[in-house]
C-alpha cells in the first residue's frame, strides 16, 4: 500500500492521474502535462512535494555534525535563512542523496531530502548523528508545496500568513524565512522563480485550493520531470546514485574541499578521484533530428560508450533533450541509439532553459 500525502484527497477530487512513485501515490498529471509545463514556464504552477522528507536538527554540535555528514560545507551559511545545496556521500564517495540544508539559527538546521531515499537517509543520518548528541526530528506533521513560475510569488503572496508575507517577498534566491510551522524558501526544481512552502499538514488542502483559485495551476510529476530536465537539474536515482560520485554527476561545484582539514564522509575517496581525474562526466544532449531520447539508451562517443541518465521531450525547447554520462572527450556531437536507430545529438552544458529563456 502506497503512502499518501495530506493532499491526496485533493488530488483525487481534482481528477488527477495518480501513480505509484517512490512508495507514494502521487499525481502524474491533472489532465495535460504539457499544459502544466507551460503554466510553470509562462505563469505559475504548483506541485505537492510533501513526499519529500523534512528533517530538523537541534543541538550545540549541529554544525560539526553537518560538516561531517555533507560534502558541501555548512560553514558557508552565516546568516539564519541561508540555504545550501549539496550531496550526502557514502564513504566510497558515492552519492546517497542530494539535498538542501537551511541554517535557521545557532544549533538549528533543517534539511529536505528526496522521497525515494527518505527512509535510508534518515537511518544514515541518525547513525552519524549518534556521535554528536544532537536531536534529529523527521517532520511528518508538515506538508510541502512548491509554487513555481514567473508569476508564482505574486499569485501566492496574499495567501501567506500576514506575519510572513512581507519577508517572503523580500527573500533573495536560496534563502528562507519562517514563522511558527510555516517556512518559505525561494528555491525550486523547475528553473523558474518561486517558493517552496512548508506548512502544517492540516492546513495544506485549504492552502492548495486557495492557490488554485488565485490562478496557480496544479502540476504533476510528469511536468516536474520535464521542467527539471530542461533546467538541467539532476534527478536522484536516474542521473546519480551510490555508484556515482559528484565529479561525474555535474556536481563538483557542490563539493567543498577547502578547508583541507574538514573530514566529511567520502572525502578520502573524492581526493583519490580528483588526483586521478574523473573518467566520466555528465553532459547535456540535444537531439539533432526528430525522436525522443530516453533513460538507459546507449551513447557512442569517440572515447567509448556512455549512457543516457535522463531523456525526454523538452516542451519549451520543442525537441528532445537529455542528460548523459559519457567518457571524457571533446566530441561536439555523439550518437544515441534510439531503439536501434543511430541518431546524432549535440553535446551541451546544461541547463537547456533557465528563467523562461531557451539557452540551446
Amino acid at each position, binding site marked *: 500500500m502506497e503512502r499518501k500525502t495530506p493532499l491526496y484527497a485533493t488530488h483525487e477530487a481534482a481528477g488527477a492521474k495518480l501513480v505509484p512513485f517512490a512508495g507514494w501515490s502521487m499525481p*502524474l498529471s491533472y489532465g495535460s*502535462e*504539457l499544459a502544466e509545463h507551460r503554466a510553470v514556464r509562462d505563469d505559475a504552477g504548483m506541485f505537492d512535494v510533501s513526499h519529500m522528507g523534512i528533517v530538523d536538527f537541534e543541538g550545540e554540535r549541529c554544525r560539526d555534525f553537518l560538516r561531517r555528514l555533507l560534502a558541501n560545507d555548512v560553514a558557508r551559511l552565516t546568516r539564519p535563512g541561508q540555504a545550501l545545496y549539496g550531496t550526502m556521500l557514502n564513504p566510497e564517495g558515492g552519492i546517497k542523496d542530494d539535498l538542501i540544508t537551511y541554517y535557521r539559527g545557532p544549533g538549528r538546521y533543517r534539511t529536505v531530502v528526496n522521497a525515494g531515499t527518505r527512509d535510508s537517509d534518515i537511518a544514515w543520518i541518525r547513525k552519524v548523528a549518534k556521535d554528536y548528541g544532537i536531536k534529529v526530528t523527521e517532520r511528518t506533521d508538515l506538508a510541502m508545496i512548491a509554487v513555481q513560475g514567473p508569476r508564482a510569488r505574486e499569485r501566492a503572496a496574499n495567501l501567506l500568513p500576514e506575519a510572513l508575507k512581507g519577508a517572503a517577498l523580500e527573500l533573495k534566491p536560496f534563502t528562507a524565512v519562517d514563522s511558527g510551522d510555516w517556512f518559505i524558501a525561494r528555491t525550486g526544481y523547475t528553473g523558474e522563480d518561486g517558493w517552496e512552502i512548508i506548512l502544517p499538514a492540516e492546513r495544506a488542502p485549504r492552502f492548495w485550493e486557495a492557490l488554485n483559485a488565485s490562478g496557480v495551476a496544479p502540476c504533476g510529476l510528469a511536468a516536474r520531470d*520535464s521542467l527539471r530536465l530542461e533546467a538541467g537539474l539532476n534527478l536522484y536515482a536516474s542521473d546519480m546514485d551510490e555508484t556515482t560520485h559528484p565529479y561525474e554527476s555535474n556536481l563538483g561545484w557542490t563539493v567543498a574541499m577547502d578547508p583541507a582539514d574538514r573530514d566529511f564522509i567520502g572525502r578520502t575517496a573524492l581526493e583519490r578521484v580528483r588526483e586521478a581525474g574523473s573518467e566520466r562526466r555528465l553532459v547535456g544532449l540535444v537531439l539533432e533530428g*526528430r*525522436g525522443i531520447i530516453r533513460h538507459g539508451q546507449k551513447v557512442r562517443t569517440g572515447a567509448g560508450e556512455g549512457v543516457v541518465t535522463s531523456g525526454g521531450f523538452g516542451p519549451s525547447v520543442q525537441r*528532445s533533450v537529455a542528460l548523459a554520462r559519457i567518457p571524457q572527450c571533446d566530441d561536439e556531437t555523439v550518437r544515441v541509439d534510439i531503439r536501434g536507430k543511430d541518431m546524432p545529438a549535440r553535446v551541451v552544458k546544461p541547463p537547456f532553459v533557465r528563467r523562461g529563456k531557451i539557452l540551446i
Partner: protein
Amino acid sequence: MSEIPGDLHYTDTHEWLRQLDDGTLELGVTEHAQQALGDLVFVELPEEGTELSAGEGCVVVESTKAASDVYSPVDGEIVAVNEALVDHPENVNEDPYGEGWLVRIRTSGGELPPNLMDAEAYAAHIESES
C-alpha cells in the same frame, strides 16, 4: 467512461480500424489508449508502401513518459500515413478517432480477422482490464 464509436472495430491492444469506402482500412488508437498514454510528443510513421503482417508494430507513438508500439491487426500494405502528426502529435490526444488517425492499410481483401471486437465487446474489454 471513454468514447467508443459504434462503427469501428477494436483490438485488445486498444487500436481501432475503420472500413473506408475505397476498401482500405484506417488505423488509430482509442480514446482509452490516448488517455492512458498521456500527451503525445512524437509519432514515428512508416513509409508508404511498407508491407505489414498482422500483429506487427507499424507506428510508434511517444508520450512524455514512454514509447509505445501500435500494432496492425491485419496483413496488408501501408497506402497512406497521416503526415500532419509529424508537427501535431497532439491531434491523437485531441481527436483520436478523427484528425488523429495514423495510417491507411490496403489488405488483399476478404474478411476482417475474427479477434476484432465491436464497440460493446471493447467496452467490456476495457472494464476487464481496469
